[in-house]
């Protein structure tokens, strides 16, 4: 996201503080991303839809307190969405779900020598299942949502170095287990 885009977004946010209707522009811009993020963590369209609406209601509610902290506005929405989905799983006492799009996984991982097949997918699922949840959260934000480490740190309330550490560890394990070349940009 460019500096100009961030500045433009902040202007809309400031306007929305006094006129909530102005927030509609940001709603339209981020609705799909937040919805997909929630769908990935619930695997249920209705639940994702409800949580998504609640995320934006909460955002509108807390907008007067919003302050720019060096990360795009979307990071703040992701933070609220993360809190909502965590609240949902706490309330329902269920296991947290990560429902990953196969096409995204394919994009993420470039096989160097073998062909991508069902067996590899199953092995990858088992591997991801055994990863600690916080590590998986970082991986999801980094590779499925294209967030940088500063944003991930802000969303998950951890330090930037903590976010990097978790990603490196998870990727190292992935490389060891699968002999894969994982696309990785600093």
């Amino acid at each position: 996201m460019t500096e100009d885009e961030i500045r433009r977004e902040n202007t809309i946010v400031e306007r929305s503080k006094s006129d909530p209707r102005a927030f509609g522009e940001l709603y339209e811009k981020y609705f799909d991303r937040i919805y997909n993020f929630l769908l990935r963590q619930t695997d249920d369209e209705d639940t994702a839809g409800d949580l998504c609406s609640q995320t934006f209601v909460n955002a509108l509610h807390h907008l007067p307190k919003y302050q720019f902290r060096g990360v795009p506005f979307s990071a703040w929405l992701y933070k609220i969405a993360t809190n909502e989905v965590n609240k949902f799983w706490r309330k329902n006492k269920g296991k947290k779900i990560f429902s990953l799009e196969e096409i995204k996984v394919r994009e993420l991982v470039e096989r160097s020598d073998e062909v991508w097949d069902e067996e590899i997918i199953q092995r990858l699922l088992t591997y991801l299942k055994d990863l600690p949840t916080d590590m998986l959260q970082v991986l999801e934000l980094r590779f499925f949502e294209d967030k940088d480490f500063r944003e991930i740190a802000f969303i998950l309330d951890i330090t930037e170095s903590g976010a990097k550490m978790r990603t490196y560890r998870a990727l190292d394990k992935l490389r060891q287990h699968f002999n894969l070349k994982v696309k990785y940009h600093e």
Partner: protein
Amino acid sequence: MSNHEIRMRRKMAGRGADRFRNYGDVLQRHERELRLKKILRVFSMVFVIMIVVMLIVIVVRIERRFDKKSNATRSQVDHRFR
């Protein structure tokens, strides 16, 4: 045992999202919650004011009772010395 489950989805999301996209509804919910919050704030303020008033009344009554008692004992003592 891990505390999450991994699933693989063949189809991308996205299309289903349109069913839930409704900013008017979000705005309405926000305004409703805001109104509810205001009402709750007014109620809690009234409640706090009532408690303070009740405390003041109780303290004043206790003080009056003490005053009456001390006046009674003083008059008894005065009466005895006369």
